[in-house]
């Protein structure tokens, strides 16, 4: 137990950082060893990350908790991608986002409105049930938006190569544009209904928060609402206006920026709610 208690943001971050450095080394000196070593570090990071989440149970309602949970889901995505798409430079794109989220989580650890722990039993019963439904849906939306962001970044790089007529599959092997576009589309298609329902539940819960006026005008609520609007625009551009995928990728990146704003700002229900 003391070993798990000793797990810190640094241990998790350093493991992922080593995995990233090994993956970068693979780009310059191709070889199976780098990937395997990178995966070992990545898996160690994921293990430490999981243990930390299980032991500390940070609340998804506070910035540090939500960022750490999102980083965990993306770390899973990284491990899956690295194994499933062995030849692609998957980790080089996913791990910086995971690391960024961990760093942000660390920065917001003390400065956030509270560092409340997630009380699983409490969140699943009584009047907090709907709040937990809201939290889970927003977290899943975050995963969708993050996946869409990663797919969009890779898409833009791949598309730039094509526009400049650079030699394909050179130093940075990536999935095809079609595959990245499909990944982006699916992530958004799945995330939008979840965001809609999550927002709806959150809207119904807002009047029960500590201060009604402040709740509606909080940055978190406004940025999440803006995210929903961006989603709507994205869906229209894709299915209604048939806008080229490159422009959709730019919108997806904007959606991720809004998501980050929503994640790092205080949740109306968490203000003053420290345990």
């Amino acid at each position, binding site marked *: 137990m003391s070993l798990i208690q000793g797990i810190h943001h640094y241990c998790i971050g350093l493991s992922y950082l080593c995995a990233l450095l090994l993956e970068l080394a693979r780009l310059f000196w191709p070889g199976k060893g780098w990937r395997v070593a990178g995966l070992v570090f990545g898996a160690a990071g994921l293990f430490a990350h999981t243990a930390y989440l299980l032991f500390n149970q940070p609340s998804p309602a506070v910035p540090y908790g939500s960022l750490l949970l999102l980083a965990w889901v993306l770390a899973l995505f990284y491990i899956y991608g690295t194994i499933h798409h062995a030849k692609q430079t998957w980790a080089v794109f996913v791990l910086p986002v995971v690391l960024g989220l961990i760093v942000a989580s660390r920065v917001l650890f003390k400065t956030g409105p509270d560092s409340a722990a997630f009380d699983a039993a409490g969140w699943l019963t009584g009047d907090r049930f709907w709040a937990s439904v809201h939290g889970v849906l927003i977290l899943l939306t975050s995963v969708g938006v993050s996946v869409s962001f990663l797919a969009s970044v890779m898409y833009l790089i791949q*598309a730039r190569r094509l*526009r400049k*007529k650079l*030699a*394909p*599959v*050179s130093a940075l092997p990536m999935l095809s*544009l079609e595959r990245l576009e499909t990944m982006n589309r699916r992530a958004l298609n799945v995330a939008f209904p979840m965001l809609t329902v999550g927002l709806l539940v959150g809207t119904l819960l807002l009047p029960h928060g500590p201060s009604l006026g402040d709740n509606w005008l909080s940055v978190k609520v406004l940025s999440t609402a803006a995210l929903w609007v961006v989603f709507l625009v994205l869906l229209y551009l894709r299915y209604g206006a048939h806008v080229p*995928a490159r422009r959709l990728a730019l919108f997806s990146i904007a959606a991720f920026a809004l998501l980050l704003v929503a994640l790092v700002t205080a949740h109306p229900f968490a203000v003053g709610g420290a345990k």
Partner: protein
Amino acid sequence: MNLRAIGCNVESAAVELREKLAFDAAKTQKALAELNARFAAEAVVLGTCNRVEIYVSRAETVAPLHVPLMAEFLAEIHGLSASTIAPHLYEHADAAAAKHLFRVAAGLDSVVVGESQISGQVKEAYESALKLTATGPLLNTLFPAALRVSKRVRSETGIAQGHVSVASAAVDYVRQVFSTLTDKTVLVIGAGEMGRLALNHLTERHPAAVLVTNRSPERAAASAAECGGRAVPWEHLDDALVQADIVLSTTGAPEPIVTRRRFDDKVRRRRAGRTLLVFDMAVPRDFDPAIHDGDAVSVFNVDDLARVADERMAERRRHLPAAEQIVDAEVTKFVKEWNTRQDGPVIGQLNAEAEKIRDEILAALMTKMNGRLSAKERSEIEYAFRLFQSKLLHGPIAALKESSREGHSGGLREAIMKLFGLKG
């Protein structure tokens, strides 16, 4: 090791001679049988379009096979004169022969550096010799090692990355854009050779449909029949362009057949933003390069593809030093392991022989000194004899091992066996 790699390749012999020296199945069988019977040599014949090589190994006690003898042998097999063959043959001996094979298998000695076909040809040559029981302990170790080295070089360096022909560069672009072709339509405009080659590559990925169009309906029909596609009348080119995901264009038209205006007015809008890849392999060009936007429509002409192929080749060459390093390390390892394998029984026999003599002398001494020695004195004498033996043999064994490391322990091994009266 008594190994020789003797042969000719694209650098040492003209294609006319290489053609005459080519081995078919019957000649291979005959050559291997003759080499076994006549020279007591284990052998493998490696014949590709760029090289004809024979790898031969004989017992260390007999003279190796050299170029003049092999030239005569090849002349006899192919019905040529030895004097026309000999000047074009090269010879690599022992470790250098192993290195040559490792380089060949890894594609480092190929015209197209890093080409993958050669490792399959090496494997095939070895397996066919193995089937004919023409190989022995050395070649049965050497060839599997060469195939391992080839795999290592390809996986640990970028030597085999990307395609290096113009037609396959087009396929690489396709892979960069589309994950599958099973729901895509390929449109072939014209009947140029380059387009046909690119189409061959693409059809390996099973496109949903292949449309072929040509100013001459007869030629369109013939080309469509050849590639299992559907002929489209030349007048319906715009409709075919709307339908297509990939276009291979190789007409001999003196002016562009698809101008930007024509494409924007009659094709672009009807495509609803779907991605189109155009490979304009015609000179003069068939498509106005201004159509390229790198997003919905990408147009690559023959210069773009040739540039990619050249870049690929340069990129492969960049990995040559790393690949050569792997080959060198593997050759050293192979030679050391082979020699150790050969030295092991000799060292074992040497030690056993010395132990036998030591035990006999000790036994005689102990009988003579019976009762006059304490247990401690007996053990000290035994220790002194053991020490003497190990110091005496240390020199020859160390020299043998050192010689093995350097890759030429054969002569010394023979000398030790003779000096100490060991049986082979």
